[in-house]
C-alpha cells in the first residue's frame, strides 16, 4: 500500500515484497505465474494479433475499394478473409477480454492475491500463444484456411479444399480451445473461492458477474466446437464420413455443431465488454449502477439463453418452419436482458453527474453502436427478412456494429480507464478524446454503408464485384472509413505507448474508482494487497471506513499473511474465511508443457501420427514432473 503508517507495517510490506517478487529479466517472464504479468503478456500478444487481423481487414477493404479490384486473387482473398474472421474472434476479441482484462483485473477486483490456479493460468497463455502462431504459420506459408470463419462443409472437406489450410484452422482452434477452457475454469474457481472475506456474491462487482457468465458459457460452448473440429479432421486426415452425405454423413451436422458453439461465442465476446462498461459508468457518473441485481441477472441470462438460439444462423437452409419459428422466438427473447442492461447504463448516465472523459466517451459510443447493431440483430430474428438478407453485407454490418462497436469500443475504453492503474501514469486526455472521435467516425463510415449495399443485394465474401449494381460508391466510402478507423486505433496505441514513458505520474486512485483495484498502488505490487481488504459492498472503494480499517490492520499485522505465498480461500456464497492456502510460485513447467503440446499439433498437421503419439507421452511426463513438487514442500 502507498501510505505505510508505522515501521512494523513497513517491515511487513518489505517481507511480502521479498516473498512475492519473481525472478527478474526474461526468465522471470517465461516462468511467471503472476496473474498481472500474464495479463500483460496476453495484452501485447492479442494486440499484435489485432494488428494482423486489422491489416487483413484493410487488405479486404482495399481489394473491394472499387469494382474488379486487382489487389488480391481469389485464393489470397479467401485466406485473408477467413483469417481476418478467425484472428479477430479467436485470437483477439476473446483472449484480450478474458486473457488480458480478466487476468489482470479479476483477482484485484475480488481482493485476491492471485488466480486459483496460477500455473494453469500461465499454461493458458503459452498454449494460446503457440496456437496463434500455429495458425499463422499456415497463412504465411500460403496455406491459410480459405473457407470462411465458419468453414462450412463440404467446401472444407479434402475433396474441395485439398491443401493443409483447413487443417491449420481445425487443429489450431482445437488448440486454442484447450487454452480458453483452462482460463474459463480458472476464472470460475477464482470467483467462487478466492473472493476477499466479506465479499458475498451479492457484493461482487458486476464486472465479475460478467466474467462468471462468460466462463460458464465457454465451459459449455467450446466442446461443441471441438466435436465439430474433431469430426472434420477425422474426415480430412483419416477418411471418415461424418460430413459426407454419400456415405451416410450429413453436412448440416457441421452447421448445427458450429453454431451451437458459435452463437454463445458472440455473447462470450460481448459480455466482458458489458462488464467493462458497468465498471466505467459508475466511476464517471459518481453514482451507483441503477438496478444492480437486474443487471447481474441479465448478464447471467444472456449467457444462458445464448445457448438456445443457434439455428437463427441457418434460416436459409430450409429447416422445418416450426424449427425456424422456435429459434426466431428465442432470438427475440434474448433481446430483453440486453435491453435491461442498456437502459440500466443509460439511466445511470442520465441520473448521475457524468464527466465525459475519454473512457466514458468510448462507453457512450459503445451504447450508441450497440443499439444500432442490436436492432439490426432483431431484424434478423424476423425469419423472412433474414432469409432475404442472410449472407449479404447487411449481416457484415450487423456483426461489426455489435462486435467492433459493442465489444471492442469498451475494450479500448477499458485500456484508457485502467492505464493509470497498470502503469502508474496518465495518458494524454486531448489525444485520447481525438482518438475516440476519429475511431467513432471511421467506424460508422466503414460499417454503416454495409447495411445499404446489403439491401442492394451485395453478397458477402466476394473477392470482387461488378460495377452497375449501385454498390460502387458505398464500397468506396467503406474503404475510406476503414483507413480512418485504422488511423484512430493507431492513435490509441500511440497515445498509450508514449504516455507509458512520458505521461504524468498518478496516485493509486486517479478517477475515484468504485472497485477494489484502486485501493492498491499503481502499478500493483506482486502480492496485490498487503492486507486482505475488508469488503462490505460492491463499491468497496467508496466505503472509506473499510479502507481506513485496512491501513489499521496493516499496522497491527492483522490479515497480512506474510509467511509465504499465502492467500485466503473463502466459502462460495458468503465468502467467509475458510482456509489459508499457499500459492505455487513461478514455474518452468507450463511453458514446457505448452511446447510439448505444440509438438503434438505440428506432427498432426504434417501427418506424422506416430511421432504425435510420442509427443503425447512426452506431455504426460511433463505433467508428472510438474506435479512432482507439492505446494507445502515449497
Amino acid at each position, binding site marked *: 500500500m502507498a501510505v505505510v503508517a508505522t515501521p512494523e507495517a513497513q517491515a511487513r510490506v518489505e517481507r511480502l515484497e521479498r516473498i512475492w517478487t519473481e525472478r527478474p529479466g526474461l526468465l522471470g517472464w517465461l516462468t511467471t505465474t503472476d496473474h498481472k504479468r500474464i495479463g500483460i503478456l496476453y495484452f501485447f500478444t492479442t494486440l499484435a494479433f489485432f494488428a494482423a487481423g486489422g491489416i487483413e481487414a484493410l487488405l479486404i477493404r482495399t481489394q473491394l475499394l472499387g469494382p474488379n479490384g486487382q489487389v488480391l486473387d481469389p485464393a489470397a482473398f479467401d485466406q485473408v478473409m477467413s483469417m481476418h474472421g478467425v484472428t479477430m474472434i479467436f485470437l483477439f476479441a476473446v483472449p484480450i477480454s478474458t486473457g488480458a482484462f480478466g487476468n489482470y483485473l479479476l483477482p484485484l477486483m475480488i481482493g485476491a492475491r492471485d488466480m486459483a490456479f496460477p500455473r494453469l493460468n500461465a499454461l493458458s497463455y503459452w498454449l494460446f500463444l503457440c496456437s496463434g502462431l500455429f495458425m499463422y504459420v499456415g497463412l504465411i506459408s500460403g496455406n491459410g484456411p480459405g473457407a470462411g470463419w465458419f468453414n462450412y462443409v463440404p467446401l472444407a472437406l479434402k475433396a474441395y479444399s485439398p491443401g493443409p489450410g483447413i487443417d491449420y484452422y481445425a487443429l489450431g482452434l482445437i488448440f486454442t480451445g484447450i487454452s480458453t477452457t483452462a482460463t474459463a475454469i480458472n476464472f470460475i474457481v477464482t470467483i467462487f473461492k478466492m473472493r476477499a472475506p466479506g465479499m458475498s456474491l451479492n457484493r461482487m462487482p458486476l464486472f465479475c458477474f460478467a466474467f462468471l457468465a462468460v466462463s460458464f458459457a465457454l465451459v459449455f460452448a467450446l*466442446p*461443441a466446437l471441438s466435436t465439430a473440429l474433431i469430426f472434420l479432421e477425422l474426415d480430412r486426415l483419416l477418411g*471418415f464420413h461424418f460430413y459426407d452425405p454419400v456415405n451416410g454423413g450429413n453436412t448440416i*451436422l457441421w452447421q448445427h*455443431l458450429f453454431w451451437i458453439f458459435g452463437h454463445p461465442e458472440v455473447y462470450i465476446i460481448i459480455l466482458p465488454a458489458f462488464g467493462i462498461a458497468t465498471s466505467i459508468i459508475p466511476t464517471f457518473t459518481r453514482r451507483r449502477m441503477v438496478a444492480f441485481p437486474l443487471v447481474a441477472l441479465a448478464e447471467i441470462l444472456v449467457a444462458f439463453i445464448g445457448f438456445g438460439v443457434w439455428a437463427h444462423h441457418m434460416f436459409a437452409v430450409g429447416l422445418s418452419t416450426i424449427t425456424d419459428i422456435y429459434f426466431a422466438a428465442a432470438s427475440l427473447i434474448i433481446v430483453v436482458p440486453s435491453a435491461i442492461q442498456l437502459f440500466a447504463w443509460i439511466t445511470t448516465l442520465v441520473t448521475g453527474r457524468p464527466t465525459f472523459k475519454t473512457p466514458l466517451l468510448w462507453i457512450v459510443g459503445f451504447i450508441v453502436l450497440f443499439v444500432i447493431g442490436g436492432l439490426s440483430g432483431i431484424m434478423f430474428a424476423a425469419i423472412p427478412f433474414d432469409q432475404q438478407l442472410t449472407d449479404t453485407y447487411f449481416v457484415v454490418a450487423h456483426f461489426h456494429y455489435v462486435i467492433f462497436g459493442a465489444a471492442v469500443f469498451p475494450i479500448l475504453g477499458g485500456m484508457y480507464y485502467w492505464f493509470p492503474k497498470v502503469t502508474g501514469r496518465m495518458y494524454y486526455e486531448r489525444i485520447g478524446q481525438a482518438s475516440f472521435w476519429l475511431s467513432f467516425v471511421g467506424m460508422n463510415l466503414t460499417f454503416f454503408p454495409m447495411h445499404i449495399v446489403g439491401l442492394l443485394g451485395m453478397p458477402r465474401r466476394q473477392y470482387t464485384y461488378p460495377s452497375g449494381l449501385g454498390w460502387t460508391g458505398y464500397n468506396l466510402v467503406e474503404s475510406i472509413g476503414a483507413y480512418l478507423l485504422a488511423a484512430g486505433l493507431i492513435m490509441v496505441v500511440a497515445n498509450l505507448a508514449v504516455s507509458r514513458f512520458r505521461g504524468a505520474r498518478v496516485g493509486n486512485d486517479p478517477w475515484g474508482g468504485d472497485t477494489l483495484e484502486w485501493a492498491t498502488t499503481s502499478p500493483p505490487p506482486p502480492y496485490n494487497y498487503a492486507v486482505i481488504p475488508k469488503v462490505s459492498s460492491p463499491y468497496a472503494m467508496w466505503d472509506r471506513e473499510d479502507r481506513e480499517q485496512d491501513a489499521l490492520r496493516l499496522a497491527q499485522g492483522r490479515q497480512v499473511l506474510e509467511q509465504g505465498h499465502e492467500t485466503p*480461500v473463502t*466459502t462460495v456464497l458468503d465468502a467467509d474465511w475458510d482456509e489459508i492456502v499457499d500459492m505455487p510460485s513461478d514455474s518452468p513447467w507450463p511453458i514446457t508443457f505448452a511446447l510439448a503440446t505444440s509438438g503434438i499439433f505440428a506432427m498432426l498437421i504434417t501427418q506424422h501420427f506416430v511421432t504425435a503419439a510420442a509427443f503425447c507421452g512426452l506431455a504426460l511426463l511433463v505433467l508428472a514432473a510438474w506435479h512432482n513438487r507439492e505446494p*507445502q514442500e515449497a
Partner: protein
Amino acid sequence: MSDLTRSMEATGAGAAARVEQQRRALPNGVWGMALLIATEAALFGTMLASYYYLRFQTSQWPPPGIARPEVLAPAILTGILVATTVPMFLAARAAGRGHARAAMWLLLVAALVQGGYLGVQIHLFLSDLHKFSPGQTAYGSVYFTILFLHHVHVFVGIALVLWLAGRLIGGLTNYRLTATRAIAFYWYFVNAMAILVVLTQLYPSL
C-alpha cells in the same frame, strides 16, 4: 482468525484429515475437477447427440452389410467398470479419515479392474475394426470415434490413479487428500459416461 487452518502446513495424515473436516467449502482442486468434468460431459453430450442426429437422418442403421453389435460382452464389461465406483469411493473416504495405506490399496484394486476392462475393450475394439471400418460409412465413423473417446478417458483415469497411489506411499498430505477426492470424482464421471456410451453403442440391438 488465529484459529484459521493453514492447509499447506497439513503435511501429516492426521493434520490433513483435520483440515479436511474443518473445511466448509469444497477445496479448489475439487472445484477445478468438477468444472473439467462439466466441459468433458458437454463434449460427450455433443458427440452422443451427433450419433443420434446421424442415425435419424438415415433410414437403415447400422447400414446394410454391417451386423448389429453384440450386447453381452460390452454390457458385462461396463457393469464391471461401474463397480469400481465402490473402491474409488472407499479410497476417498479412507483418505478423508487419514488412512493413507488403506486408500492406496483401494486405489490399486480399482486400477487393476479398470486396467483389465481397458485391455478387453481394446481387444473388442480391434476385432470390430476387422469387421467394419470407420472409413466405410458415417455409422462406423461415429461408432469408433465415441468408443475411442471413452477409452482415452479410461486410460487417463488409470494413469491418474496409479500416479496417486504412488504418491500415497509417501503418506498423506492435504494436497494428496484433495487429489484423491478429485480423482475419485473424475472416476464417478467416467463410469457414468461408460453407461451412456455403452447404451449408445448397443442402441441398434436394444
